[in-house]
């Protein structure tokens, strides 16, 4: 087994065993773990408090109890988080931070407190007026109050020094991930959509310093290999996520390479560096102000279509796959703008509706195959 295979296998294991990773971390270090719901929670605060931030992105669970708490027409992530909460799957977490990302997410923290009263859930409200000075200060104060709540619950304190240090580490990790995406685009034979996702997903269940070392080594090993652009379509993917695994395998089956992404679970987490400021909380507020192109963030200028178009041009991609998570209102509202921008730029795109709990992806097979044939015929 090559070193690349070893790293990828380790990442795959991490990505598929979040609960085990949390328990292992807690037993080995004696430290605490805090759940982080998508998507603009500034997990640096948790890291700076000496705890493991754990991404909560739902999961491929069977939905039964979730509908006791939320409507059936909630997105997969909301339903899965509710299901796992009701089943006590988050009991190893010492707290959970939950932002009001959208209308659905607004009620989830309340319901989680009912479903699992023993796990504290801390709400986070981020502003629409995020770019003005008052908005930056408001965001900084929200993150500050989270650090205080975490301290009350866990006893772990965040200092300015520790938060600055965590921000620097995260900046480094995020840059390494963006670099990995660029290098991976030139190694389509090794980094298929499935493996690319394992690299991203594993970042949510280990400390960033460990993940950074793995990604840097993987990228270095990949860079030493001959360039391989693949024989299939080279696309940019946008949306919330590309789960479940079956969907990723289907992309792989038709030879797709993800040359860049605009996924909430992936590059939207990594692409905006945290700017400088003497106050580390203001730094995080400034980052939220600087962030562009997310359906869950107020954007009067509707820049997302342009951001995606620029990715296509930079990577010379063949097209774009828009993955709409079923019942995700913010993504559905963004789609007409993205569609218009892509059509104006003459970039072909495929609209695919997905669910994290899809047991069968056969409905999507024809669409992905036809889109691949369409791109390769051009």
């Amino acid at each position, binding site marked *: 087994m090559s070193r690349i295979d070893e790293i990828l296998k380790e990442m795959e294991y991490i990505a598929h065993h979040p609960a085990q990773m949390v328990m292992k971390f807690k037993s080995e270090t004696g430290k605490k773990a805090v759940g982080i719901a998508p998507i603009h929670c500034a997990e640096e605060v948790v890291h700076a408090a000496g705890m493991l931030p754990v991404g909560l992105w739902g999961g491929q669970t069977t939905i039964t109890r979730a509908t006791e708490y939320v409507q059936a027409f909630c997105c997969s992530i909301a339903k899965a988080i509710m299901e796992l909460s009701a089943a006590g799957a988050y009991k190893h977490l010492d707290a959970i931070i939950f932002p009001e990302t959208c209308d659905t997410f607004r009620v989830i923290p309340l319901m989680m407190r009912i479903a699992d009263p023993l796990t504290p859930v801390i709400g986070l409200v981020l502003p629409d007026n995020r770019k003005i000075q008052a908005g930056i200060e408001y965001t900084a104060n929200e993150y500050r109050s989270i650090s205080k709540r975490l301290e009350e619950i866990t006893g772990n304190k965040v200092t300015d020094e520790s938060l600055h240090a965590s921000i620097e580490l995260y900046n480094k990790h995020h840059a390494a991930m963006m670099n990995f995406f660029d290098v991976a685009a030139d190694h389509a034979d090794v980094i298929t959509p499935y493996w690319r996702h394992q690299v991203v997903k594993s970042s949510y269940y280990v400390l960033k310093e460990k993940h950074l070392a793995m990604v840097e080594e993987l990228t270095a090993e990949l860079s030493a290999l001959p360039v391989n652009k693949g024989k299939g379509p080279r696309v940019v993917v946008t949306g919330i996520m590309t789960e479940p695994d079956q969907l990723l395998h289907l992309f792989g089956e038709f030879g797709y390479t993800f040359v860049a992404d605009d996924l909430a679970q992936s590059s939207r987490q990594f692409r905006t560096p945290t700017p400088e400021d003497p106050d580390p909380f203001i730094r995080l507020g400034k980052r939220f102000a600087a962030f562009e192109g997310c359906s869950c963030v107020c954007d009067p200028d509707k820049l997302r279509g342009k951001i995606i178009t620029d990715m296509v041009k930079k990577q010379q991609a063949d097209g774009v796959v828009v993955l709409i998570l079923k019942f995700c209102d913010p993504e559905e509202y963004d789609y007409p703008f993205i569609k218009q921008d892509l059509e104006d730029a003459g970039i*072909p795109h495929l*609209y695919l*509706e997905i669910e994290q709990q899809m047991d069968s992806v056969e409905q999507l097979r024809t669409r992905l195959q*036809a889109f691949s*044939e*369409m791109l390769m*015929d051009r």
Partner: protein
Amino acid sequence: MLTMGVDIGSASSKVVILKDGKEMVAGVVVPVGTGTSGPARALQQALETAGVSRSDITKVIVTGYGRMTFEGADEQVSEITCHAKGVHHLVPSTRTIIDIGGQDAKVIKLDEHGYVSNFVMNEKCAAGTGRFLEVMARVLEVSVGELQELGEQAESIVPISSTCTVFAESEVISQLAAGQKGPDVVAGIHQSVARRVAGLAGRVGLVPDVVMTGGVAQNGGVVKAMEKELKVPIIVAPKSQLTGALGAALIAYEKAAKN
């Protein structure tokens, strides 16, 4: 050179044998689809019609919903690419294809050279498909083939507002129970299919000439309702059920000729 296209749908199996990529020497439709004896029977009948054996066929391409499980082909290609190829061959001026099959409704946009430039399909739901018409025909105690004739006798249209096939079925039952005339309800059913597919067409943008294919294209009532809804004339593809298989046979010819 002989090539073959096999199109295995959810409701029927179609086979076309082409000579030199031009002349259709066999075109067979068997009205049962994937998971039945349909594909094998259609293949056998096509070979018999053409008077040839499987070994005389240079290349076979399979398409349609059942393409993944059919073992007698050299390659499989998606039905979207095949329909585009087949329809463009029959009607070169085609820019938009509306294909309504047993459980799929698709709208395919072609560029001036006949290549697919965009497409949309119905989402996980039988509304606006052949299956919708089958369910409604059963409630009305007629065969699908009789729907057109019945619809022509309509004096007015009873609108069917439910999108969901199951809800629409109970809506039709209650309309009939309320004393609405069968033909008027059929006109409403045709309108319902047309409206559903018109919504899909709007997403890719309609460019004439518009050609309709698939089993449902044989129902003139739906075609008329669609023309009214989309406000454009619609050409019904000759051999509308065979366009996918024809496209597959044409692609098989092109691929074989390249080698």
